[in-house]
């Protein structure tokens, strides 16, 4: 006998779990199938060494959509999250770092001693871009417009009305339109002179992008990164117990509403009859009937692996194949015997996201290697020390450190990502860390290096791209995941998609799951 559900959700990452929660809340019977042993996708906390708990993959999750937390009562189900000052620390090779904190005036006061030229500019910059971020946040909480399918409802004025109505003034609107397609390096050069400040913001803008800060459109990367934030820069959502606790709270919340969740269950096929979903077949041959399947997997898997090739038109298949993933980051997780001593840091500075990105040229040069399939000899590092604010993550007096290493291309030329390349990556990251925190290399108890290939294998990140598709201007909004199919439905009746590959691409954690669930619910009578 085969089981039957209203909705089968494929994948157990955060967006899928959010969608499952909403669907169950609306009274649907829901089965979640996750092929791996863990839930949460790239937001996962592991314990590879006893007592040390790593945010193994992403440590700087996008802001969690507030409505999701409320609707699914995640607080009630154990989610504790905060943001702490300082938000971002731009380390400098010599001397004290630049501290970016929530209050722009306070940041400016701090800048007065370390980067006096920029102190006066900072509050103006924060004030100028905050409306852009707010606008983007609003766009990210809605299903994107579909320009091709609207009536001559006046695309030009659509833009105009949408933006005007939001209270942006004439100047701000022009600035918004002018700024998005810019290279972030130009934007930062227009405002600031300090290399480390520009280097840190430039590096945040090109996080997980196969672009250097001099590439056009990277200013959008900065705004995307800041989405959902009431401050410039954005702080890291600090989740008690590690980022994996978000999935845990979602799981508890979903199960409490009757969602069935099975892990370690690989799906072999989405079954389709006459372009309508009939159910799924599991790797063991078991079938589950459902007239709705919601896939949280990347499009490549959903459309090219789980469906029979004949189901989709070749034109659509080509659009799916054209999605650019291009993971460019690697992860290094460290268990430390003692607190790292960064030169010139104050104690509280370890709470922030520490950027080892001394200049825009440094970021650009680190990126240059990516174009030729090489890993950066002198990478850009984004460092957090989660155990500083959450001592439960490490034994007393010990610490865990989590480091994103940019740039490390998925397609490494030569032998590819073998053990030697992986260790070389960790070595260059640690060497760089040692230049800023001299005691660090000596205090490493355990290290774990995850190349883009590892990220793909362990966390389902296609080509190591944890955003499940590069977040570039041509792959957002009505273009995500493929042009014309941004509203979570697909050419197959009953098949829906959610996850980071869909709008808003992880711009707000939980949002795509919520929007996709709404879309599914609207489709049923």
């Amino acid at each position, binding site marked *: 006998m085969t089981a039957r559900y209203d909705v089968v959700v494929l994948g157990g990452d955060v967006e899928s779990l959010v969608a499952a929660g909403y669907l169950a809340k609306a009274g649907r019977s829901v089965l979640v199938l996750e092929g791996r042993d863990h839930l949460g996708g790239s937001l996962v906390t592991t314990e590879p060494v006893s007592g040390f708990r790593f945010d193994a993959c992403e440590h700087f999750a996008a802001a969690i959509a507030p409505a999701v937390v409320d609707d699914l009562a995640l607080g009630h189900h154990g989610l504790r999250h905060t943001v702490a000052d300082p938000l971002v620390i731009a380390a400098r090779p010599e001397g004290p770092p630049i501290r970016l904190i929530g209050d722009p005036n306070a940041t400016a006061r701090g800048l007065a001693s370390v980067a006096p030229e920029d102190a006066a500019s900072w509050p103006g910059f924060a004030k100028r871009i905050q409306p852009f971020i707010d606008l983007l946040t609003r766009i990210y909480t809605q299903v994107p417009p*579909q*320009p*091709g*399918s*609207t*009536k*001559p*409802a*006046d*695309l*030009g*004025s*659509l*833009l*105009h009305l949408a*933006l*005007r109505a939001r209270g942006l003034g*004439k*100047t701000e*609107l*022009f*600035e918004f*339109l*002018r*700024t*998005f*397609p*810019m*290279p972030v390096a*130009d934007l930062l050069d*227009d405002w600031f002179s300090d290399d480390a400040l520009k280097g840190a913001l430039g590096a945040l803008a090109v996080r997980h992008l*196969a*672009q250097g800060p*001099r*590439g*056009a*459109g990277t200013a959008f990367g900065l705004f995307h990164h800041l989405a959902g934030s009431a401050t410039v820069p954005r702080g890291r959502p600090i989740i008690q117990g590690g980022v994996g606790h978000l999935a845990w709270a979602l799981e508890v919340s979903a199960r409490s509403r009757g969602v069935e969740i099975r892990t370690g269950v690989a799906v072999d096929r989405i079954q389709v009859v006459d372009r309508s979903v009939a159910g799924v077949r599991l790797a063991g041959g078991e079938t589950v009937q459902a007239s709705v399947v919601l896939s949280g997997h990347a499009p490549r898997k959903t459309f090219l692996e789980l469906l029979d090739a004949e189901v989709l038109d070749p034109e659509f298949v080509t659009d799916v194949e*054209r999605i*650019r993933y291009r993971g460019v980051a690697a992860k290094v997780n460290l268990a430390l015997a003692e607190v790292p001593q960064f030169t010139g840091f104050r104690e509280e500075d370890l709470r922030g996201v520490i950027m080892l990105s001394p200049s825009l*040229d440094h970021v*650009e*040069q680190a990126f*240059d290697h990516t*174009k*030729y399939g090489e890993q950066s000899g002198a990478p850009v590092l984004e460092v957090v020390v989660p155990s500083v604010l959450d001592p439960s993550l490490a034994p007393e007096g010990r610490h865990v450190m989590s480091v994103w290493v940019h740039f490390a291309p998925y397609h490494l030329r030569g032998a590819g990502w073998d053990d030697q390349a992986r260790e070389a990556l960790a070595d260059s990251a640690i060497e760089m860390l040692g230049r800023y925190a001299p005691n660090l290399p000596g205090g490493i108890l355990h290290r774990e290096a995850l190349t883009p290939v590892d990220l793909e294998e362990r966390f389902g990140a296609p080509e190591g791209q944890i955003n499940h598709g590069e977040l*570039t*201007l*041509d792959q957002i909004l*009505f*273009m995500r995941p493929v*042009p*014309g199919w941004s509203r979570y439905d697909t050419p197959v009746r009953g098949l829906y998609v959610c996850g980071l590959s869909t709008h808003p691409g992880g711009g707000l954690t939980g949002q795509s799951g919520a929007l996709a669930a709404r879309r599914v619910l609207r489709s049923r009578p």
Partner: protein
Amino acid sequence: MTRSYDAIIIGGGHNGLVTAAYLARSGRRVLVLERRHILGGAAVTEEIFPGFKFSVFSYVVSLLRPEIIRELDLASHGLQILPLESTLTPLPNGDHFMAWGDHDRARQELMRHSLRDAEAYEEFGREMHHMAMAVRPILEMVPPDPTSLSPSDLGAMLRLGKHMHDLGSERFHMLYRLMTMSSADFLSEWFECEPLKATKSASGIIGTFLGPRSPGTAYVLLHHYMGDIDGAFRAWGFARGGTGAISEAIASAARAAGAEIRTEAGVERVLLERGRAAGVVLEGGEEIRSRVVVSALDPRRTFLQMLEPESLPGDLVDSLRRYRFRGSSGKVNLALDRLPDFTCMPGPGPHLGGAVSISPSIEYLERAHDDAKYGEFSRRPYMDVILPSMIDPGMAPPGKHVMSIFVQYAPYHLNGGWTDQRREAFGDTVIDTLSEYAPNLKSAILHRQVVTPKDIETVAGLSEGNIFHGELALNQLFFLRPAAQWAKYRTPVRHYYQCGSGTHPGGGIMGASGRLAAREILTDWGQRP
């Protein structure tokens, strides 16, 4: 004594001359003032060495608007466009990639490199044709202000919206992708042949400080397809007599319509009276009065040199200071004793009547850009080479030849600045690189002229040597060119207009800016253009 004119045009470049011709044709008294001894700005032909004529700066004509050719009857004023038949991309391994004009031959060559690409090429061409059709109305319109609620702006936005809608969703998406993607990524979706991708993508980087992998470089691919739909003979061509002949033809049309043109008449500043433009003051102090003044100069010169910054709103001054020029290209012009002999295609042949593109791979172009990002000229630059004397024998003495080499990247902001020594080093790099493909080149050189972005600034008067009066980047196009709210050819100073390449649509020897500016001026005069 001073005479009074309806309009004074500052700058005798091709856009200034176009504006002058249109205003004169409507019966207005027009005076063009050119600082140099010859007309044309960056579109000039000069006999740098006796018997050898060079299109010193701009060297091919691709986008000169057909309606300008027709309306100003440029053919009868001597304009003749000769086709560039082919593009040869020599490869380091001695092979080559050849884009032939003939369809069968082109496909045959593509098939030699990639069967898939040969098949994709036609579908690609068709899509680009559609995209070119889609953008043509945009090139022909005065950019509306998207923030304005005025009936004319709303109407224009509605027309634009309807136009986009009428494209249908598939083509709208393609246009959107073309506007936001990098040429390398866009082309990689269609093709696998590296020299094909690189040679095509090179058109996307010209005049920008971007590499082919940067977003915002894809849409320039359309330029190759614009010629077709406008009924031009070929997308790219060479003006008989060099690009200066284009300027001369337009000037001749303007004169025939009654315009006066003065050379060696540099303008010092715009004459203001009660905050309005009332004429100009020449460098010698001479004052000439007119009803309106139109600047064909680039935006920096138009606003910050011809006017006092105090006469402009602060945010306009700010945005002009942020407007990016940073010229990225140079020229090397050679007088040759004999034809170059390319290793990949030895001897004389029809390939020498086309372009030769040194663009073997996307990686080659990216590495060329890497040098420039950090303030150096490319050690191995991208080059677009033509032999004008092969197309127009009048450009060189019998049996001799002229070679035009467009070179990118050569950053205006060179580390340590441009000196005579650095200029020659740049020239040596260009010759050395080209000699790898045509080993007899060095021994064939009779004379050489090296033009750096600094020289383009000094001689042709283009700020920072940017050949397009400012980068053709997404944030400097359409209603943002040259600055928000001042994209309609007017300025905050009444009776002062702009008509250069720094206004929409700008770029290349197109003339569209000059024509649209003339239309706006006539509209302000209450005259139907």
